[in-house]
């Protein structure tokens, strides 16, 4: 489960990570894209942090939707609509909730990944955000089904996410800007998959702190 405070904490921790890894994500994008992913994500989450105080008294769904809208209107590029849609869809999935059960959390993740797939029309294995996100969500589901706590499930999720990031090094990009490189995209780690792995890292840290 997750309280509203934890959701807010997750947003803040993730925003910090985007600022902290701005250069790293940009460097990854420089190798196979146009070198702005870290700039885009950190600009977006800086705006989220400015927005947050105005919505933190609202329900979780309103908070998530506000985050999504802020990302959509400040990130731009490919990642803006994708991350923005993910947060908006996650919000819509938990309408009216003041606290999230594990089922709510799983539903929110499912809706988020569905939103990304609707927008980006990609599937796993195309060297995108999905390559860390889908394995991570699958890991959560498996671990919760196996009776683990959400904290432990998120440990597994983060590991799966980083595994997905590693996997992106081995494949050709067929979506996004990196697809122009063809064969030459092999060997490089996908920036979007990487920024998504940090989302699971942030979730895992927050859950561990809260002890859920």
């Amino acid at each position, binding site marked *: 489960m997750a309280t509203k405070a934890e959701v807010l904490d997750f947003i803040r921790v993730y925003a910090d990570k985007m600022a902290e890894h701005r250069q790293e994500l*940009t460097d990854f994008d*420089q190798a196979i*894209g*146009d*070198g*702005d992913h870290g*700039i*885009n994500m950190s*600009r977006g989450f800086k705006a989220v942090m400015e927005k947050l105080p105005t919505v933190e008294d609202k329900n979780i769904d309103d908070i998530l939707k506000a985050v999504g809208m802020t990302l*959509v*209107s*400040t*990130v*731009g*590029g*490919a*990642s*803006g*609509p*994708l991350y923005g849609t993910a947060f908006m869809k996650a919000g819509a999935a938990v309408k009216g909730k003041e606290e999230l059960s594990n089922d709510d959390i799983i539903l929110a993740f499912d809706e988020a990944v569905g939103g990304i797939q609707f*927008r*980006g029309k990609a599937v796993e294995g195309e060297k995108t955000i999905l390559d860390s996100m889908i394995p991570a969500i699958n890991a959560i589901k498996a671990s919760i089904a196996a009776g683990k706590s959400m904290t432990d499930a998120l440990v597994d999720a983060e590991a799966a996410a980083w595994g997905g990031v590693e996997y992106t090094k081995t494949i*050709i990009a*067929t*979506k*996004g*800007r990196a*697809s*122009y*490189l*063809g064969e*030459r995209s092999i060997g490089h780690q996908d920036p979007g998959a990487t920024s998504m792995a940090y989302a699971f890292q942030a979730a895992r840290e927050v859950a561990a702190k809260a002890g859920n």
Partner: protein
Amino acid sequence: MKKFINDVENVENEMLEGIVLAHPEYVARVEGFDVLVRADKKVGKVALVSGGGSGHEPSHGGFVGKGMLDGAVAGSVFTSPTPDQVFEAIKAVDAGEGVLLVIKNYTGDIMNFEMAAELAEAEGIKVANVVTNDDVAVEDSLYTTGRRGVAGTVFVHKIAGAKAEAGASLEEVKATAEKVIANVRTMGVALKPCTVPAAGKPGFELSEDEMELGIGIHGEPGTERKPIQTADEIVDYLMERILKDMDPKAGDEVAVMINGAGATPPMELYILNRRVQQILADKGVKVFKTFVGDYMTSIDMAGASITLLKLDAELKDLLLAQADTIGFKMY
């Protein structure tokens, strides 16, 4: 990084301010947004909106005006503008006849413009879009997102803009835009990289004797990195790729654009043009009109692209139709 800027966070905004202050007779800014629209809104016609990341000036704000665009949306440097910005542009220019969005084929641009179109349609505005993809450097296959939209987009603005100015319907303007897209091909080359202000360092590296063939307008890599060659050899390489793809016949008529990437002076563009014209003459392809200059730049990249547009009677008329914008004038 050596640039005339004040604050990397603010280059796009200060640039837009500078444009409006310079050319109030051409463009106005939609307050609070990074959107430029015609100083005098034209009513009773289909409106054209284009845009993309900043750093391609005079694209796109420089083409707002009579006979071309009605609105242009400026994202952060090399980053697609967000849906709310595009939506604002659509609302500002719509005159009841519908709005055509001219989108360059990049995942980000398509998603952001599509979201904007959804917002506009929800408000009852008729919106259509076309996606430009003239860059022959990139293979158009199932395994890519398709070819990139590059300098040929300027011809789409010019010709679809003329069609709209002439009072055609949204469907007609869209069909004309698609005809241009079907007939325009481009390929580029870089000698020196560009520097995104917020990144502070060049986006790729080329050693003193290297060039990147098939470069994209955001410095995306191309087909080949090679030791630098003579202007004629470079043109031969680019033209071979373009001509292979578009295959004009003797007697066909084309428009030519030799586009500078930002840091390449006219002298070099004209030396490139010389060879382009020689090759076309040898093939018996007739050049109807040639454009040489900075139309779709990549900030301060040293490089150029060659664009050919195959013309029919309609496209010729529309290409020569009056246009009066900051960056493109035709009388």
